[in-house]
C-alpha cells in the first residue's frame, strides 16, 4: 500500500522536476525538526512552483515546513507532523533593483549576506543584523521578523518591507503592498506574514526600502562594572544627543565568548556596553568625546575599537546564534522582550536564578530596544531546566514582558510551550490561520497556542 506521501512524490516531481524532489536520508536528516525528519525535500525554482507545491501538499494533506538555510528552523513547538521540507534555496533572483530610488525586490531564498553584498556595491544596505547572520535568507528573516541590535536606530524587518508576494496553500500567489516606499492601498497583509514562522503562507518575494551606508562608523566599548552602572550608562547614552545605531550590554561571559578567536580576544571580567555610531569624522569625534565624559561620570573608560575589529565584533555579537551552539551543544537560548528600562532588572534576576541553579548564563542585551537573549550554556537536567525557564518567564512577565525559548533540546519542548501563554487575541489569530491554511498543513502545531 502506498502512503499519501509516496503517492504525492510523483506529483511534486511533475511540478519541480524529479531531481528536485530529494528523499536522500542525509538531506532529510539535515532538515529534521525536533527529531522529526521529512520524507523528502522539494526544491521549487519559481514562485509559481512554490504555490503549486503547496497546493499539491494541501490536496494530499501533507505537512510542510518551509525553509532555506535552516538557521532558525528550530524555533517553535514540536511539529504535530512533518512530511515535506519545502526549500526556497533556488529562489535567488533580484528584480527591480533601483539604487537611485533606494528600493529593491528580491526572492525569498536569497542569502542575506549575498544580498548585502549586492546592494553594498552602491553604498546601500538593508540595516538589519539578524541572529542568523549572513547565512540566513531574506525569507527566513521575514518569516521570523529577525532583528538584532540595529533595531535601535533602523527598526525591524517589519519596518523595511514595502511589499511582498506570498504563495498560499490554495496554490495562488498573493501580492500585498508594492515597490514604492509609501503605500496604504489595501490591507497590510505583509505584517501578518512577517513573524508568522511559515505558518500562514510562504513568502516568495519581498520589496524593501534600502538605506545609505553611514559614511563612517565607530564602535566604543565601555566597561560597566555592575548592572547598576550599566543602567546608569544606558540612560545617559540614550538620553544624550548622540544617536547610536546599535548598543548592547554583554555580561562578562557573553563578552568573553564574543571576542574569543577574534583579534579582540582578551580576558573580560565585567559586563560591557558596546555602542556603534555612524556619521562623518567630525560627528564621530564629538561622539568619542561625549561618550568618554559619560563613561567617566559613571566610572568607566570608553575605548574605541579599530574599524576592522569592530566589524568582526558586531558580527559575532549580533549573529551569536551561528556560533554559540557549536561551542555549547546543550545551550538553551531564551529571547526575552520587555520594556527597555526593565532590562537590567531582568538580568539581575536571571543572574540570581541561574546562580542558584548553578547554570552558567551568557546574556546579550540589545539596549534601547527591549530585547535580550539569555543563554543557559550547560544542560542541567531537563526537569531542572524547565523549572528554571518557567521562573525566568515569570520574571519577564512580572516586568511586563514575555519569554520565548528559541533554542533548546526538543525534550524540553514536550514539557513546556516555547512561546508562552497566548493572549485574548488568540481566537482571531486562530481564525486567520484557518483562512490562510484551512487544512493546517503549514508547520502544524509549531506556532503560538499550537497553531
Amino acid at each position, binding site marked *: 500500500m502506498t502512503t499519501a506521501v509516496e503517492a504525492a512524490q510523483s506529483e511534486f516531481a511533475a511540478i519541480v522536476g524529479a531531481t528536485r524532489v530529494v528523499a536522500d536520508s542525509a538531506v532529510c536528516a539535515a532538515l529534521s525538526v525536533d527529531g522529526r525528519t521529512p520524507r523528502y525535500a522539494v526544491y521549487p525554482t519559481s514562485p509559481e512552483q512554490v504555490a503549486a507545491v503547496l497546493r499539491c501538499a494541501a490536496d494530499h494533506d501533507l505537512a510542510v515546513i518551509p525553509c532555506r538555510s535552516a538557521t532558525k528552523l528550530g524555533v517553535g513547538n514540536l511539529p504535530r507532523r512533518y512530511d515535506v521540507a519545502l526549500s526556497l534555496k533556488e529562489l535567488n533572483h533580484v528584480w527591480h533593483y533601483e539604487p537611485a530610488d533606494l528600493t529593491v525586490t528580491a526572492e525569498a531564498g536569497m542569502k542575506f549576506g549575498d544580498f548585502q553584498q549586492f546592494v553594498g556595491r552602491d553604498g546601500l544596505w538593508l540595516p538589519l543584523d539578524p541572529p542568523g547572520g549572513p547565512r540566513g535568507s531574506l525569507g527566513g528573516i521575514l518569516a521570523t521578523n529577525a532583528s538584532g541590535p540595529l533595531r535601535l536606530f533602523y527598526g525591524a524587518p517589519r519596518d523595511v518591507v514595502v511589499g511582498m508576494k506570498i504563495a498560499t496553500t490554495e496554490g495562488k500567489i498573493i501580492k500585498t503592498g508594492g515597490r514604492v516606499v509609501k503605500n496604504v492601498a489595501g490591507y497590510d497583509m505583509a505584517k501578518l506574514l512577517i513573524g508568522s514562522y511559515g505558518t500562514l503562507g510562504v513568502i516568495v518575494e519581498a520589496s524593501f526600502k534600502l538605506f545609505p551606508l553611514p559614511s563612517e562608523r565607530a564602535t566604543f566599548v565601555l566597561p560597566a562594572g555592575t548592572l547598576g552602572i550599566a543602567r546608569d550608562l544606558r540612560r545617559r547614552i540614550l538620553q544624550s*544627543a548622540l544617536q547610536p545605531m546599535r548598543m548592547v550590554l554583554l555580561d562578562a561571559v557573553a563578552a568573553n565568548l564574543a571576542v574569543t578567536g577574534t583579534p579582540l580576544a582578551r580576558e573580560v571580567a565585567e559586563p560591557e556596553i558596546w555602542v556603534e555610531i555612524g556619521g562623518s569624522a567630525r560627528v564621530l569625534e564629538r561622539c568619542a568625546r561625549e561618550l568618554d565624559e559619560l563613561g567617566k561620570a559613571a566610572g568607566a573608560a570608553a575605548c574605541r575599537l579599530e574599524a576592522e575589529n569592530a566589524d568582526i565584533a558586531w558580527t559575532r555579537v549580533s549573529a551569536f546564534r551561528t556560533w554559540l551552539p557549536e561551542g555549547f551543544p546543550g545551550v538553551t537560548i531564551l529571547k526575552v522582550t520587555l520594556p527597555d528600562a526593565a532590562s537590567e532588572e531582568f538580568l539581575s534576576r536571571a543572574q540570581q536564578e541561574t546562580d542558584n541553579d548553578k547554570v552558567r548564563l551568557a546574556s546579550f542585551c540589545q539596549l534601547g530596544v527591549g530585547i535580550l537573549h539569555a543563554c543557559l550554556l550547560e544542560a542541567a537536567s531537563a526537569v531542572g531546566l524547565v523549572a528554571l525557564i518557567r521562573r525566568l518567564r515569570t520574571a519577564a512577565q512580572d516586568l511586563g514582558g514575555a519569554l520565548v525559548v528559541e533554542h533548546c533540546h526538543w525534550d524540553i519542548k514536550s514539557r513546556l510551550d516555547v512561546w508562552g501563554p497566548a493572549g485574548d487575541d488568540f481566537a482571531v489569530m486562530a481564525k486567520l490561520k484557518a483562512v490562510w491554511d484551512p487544512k493546517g498543513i503549514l508547520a502544524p502545531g509549531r506556532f503560538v497556542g499550537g497553531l
Partner: protein
Amino acid sequence: MKPSPLVHELTRLVGPDAVLWRPEDLMLYEYDALSSALQPQAVVLPTSTEHVVSVVKLAVRENVPVVARGSGTGLSGGSVVTEGGIVLACARMKKIVEIDVDNLRARVQPGVVNMDLSLTVSDHGLYFAPDPSSQKACTIGGNVAENAGGPHTLAYGVTTNHVLGLEVVLPDGEVIHTGAKHWDRPGYDLTGFIVGSEGTVGIVTEITVRLCRKPEAVKTLLAIFDNILGAPRTVAAITARRITPAALEMMDGFTLRAVEEAFHVGYPMDSAGVLLVEVEGLREAAEENADQIEAICRENGAREVRRAKTAEERELLWRGRKNAFGALGRISPNYYVQDGVIPRTRLPEMLEFIEQVGQKYSLRIGNIFHAGDGNLHPLLMFDGRYPEQSQRAVKAAREIMTKCVEMGGSITGEHGVGVEKRNLMPLIFSPDDLEMMQKLKDVFNPRGLLNPGKLLPGGKMCGELRIEASTGGML
C-alpha cells in the same frame, strides 16, 4: 421630530449627552475633508471602551452599520456614512492614559489629537513622529485607521512604524488586546494588520505608541527654482547622494502664490517652484547635511536657498506648507486632491505628465508633493456648479493615478482607499489579492457592519459620494 427607537436605546446605553440625532446635528457628520455622503441615523460620542462595546452590541442586534470617526479630516471618504447607521465619534475619548518616559511609550485613547500628544510630552524632549498636515485637528485613532503619514515620515516612518499595541472592539462586542508595550509579543502581528485597515475590522479604543526623542538640531531650507523641473531633479540628486533628510517637500509656483496670498509666510511670488527641506540630528550632522543639500540645490538650478535662522522662521515656512490645501481652497470653488506614489526618480517625468493632463482637460492643477518619498498630491481645481467640470476632474485624476501605477507606484500613499479609491484597487491588485483581503476582513467583520463600502471594491452604495472639498459644489 421625535427620536427613533434606536436613539432611545442608545441614550439608555450612553446617556443623552452622548447621543446626537437631530438632523441639524447629524448634518455635520455627513462629511470628511474630501467628500460627503449620507446622514447617519445617530451619532454617539463615547467616553469609554464600555460605551463602544455597548453600542457595537446594539448595532449588531439591530443590524445597523457602525462607522468610527475621529475629527473627520480624512481625504478618501473613509469615515463618511454610505449605508446609514451609527457614527461613533471618538472626540471625547481623548485621555492620554499613560506616558512612560523611560521606555519611550504612551498609551492614548483614540480621540487624542495628534499634536496634543507631542505637546504633552514635549517637556521630556519627546514627540510623536507621524505628523499629518492636519495634525492640529486629526486624532491618533484616525491616524491608526488610515496609517497616516506626513512630511517627516520620510525619515521616521508612517503610523504603523510607531504603534506597538491596540485595544480593539470587534463587531461582536468582544474586546481584544493586540501587541504590547514591548516589541515582538509572540503571535501574529495583528497590530500591524489593523493599522491602516480603515475602520473595517474593529474599533480601536486604546493605542500604545512609541515616542521619539527630539533631535539636537534641525535645519530648514527653502530652495527656490525658476524652472520647476529643477526641484524634482534635486530630489533625485539628494536621494542618489545618500542623504536622508527628515522632510523633503515640493510645491509648484501656482500653489506657492496661493499660499503666500493667504498666509504671508514669505514665499517668493515669482518662482516656478520650491523645495522645503529639513535635516535633523546632531548639530554637526545637521550642518553638514544642510551644506551638502544647499550645494545640490544650486547644482540643479536653484536661484536661491534660504535657511531658517530661528524657530519662528522655521515655523513660518512649515505653516505655509501645512496650510497649502486650505490656500488653494480660497482660489477655487472646489479641488480634488490625489495621493499617488511613484518611484522618486520619476518625479520630473510625472510633473510633465501632470502638466499635459491639465492642458488636455483644461484644468488648473496645483502640485504639493512629499517629494522625498515620491508621494504626490496634485490638486485638481474645478467648479462643482458645472457638472461637466467635475467630470473632467475625475477623468484627469484617473489618468494621473493610472500613470502612477504604470510607473510601478501606488494609488494612495497616506490618505487611504476609503470610498473614493476602492474602485481603483483592481489597478494594482489581482482578483486573488482582493479575494484574500475580503476573507481576512470577514474574519473580523463577517457581517460587514463595520464601516461598510470602504477599502475593497464592489458593493453598492445607497447614496452618492460627493467630492466637495472647500466650498460646496459636487463631483
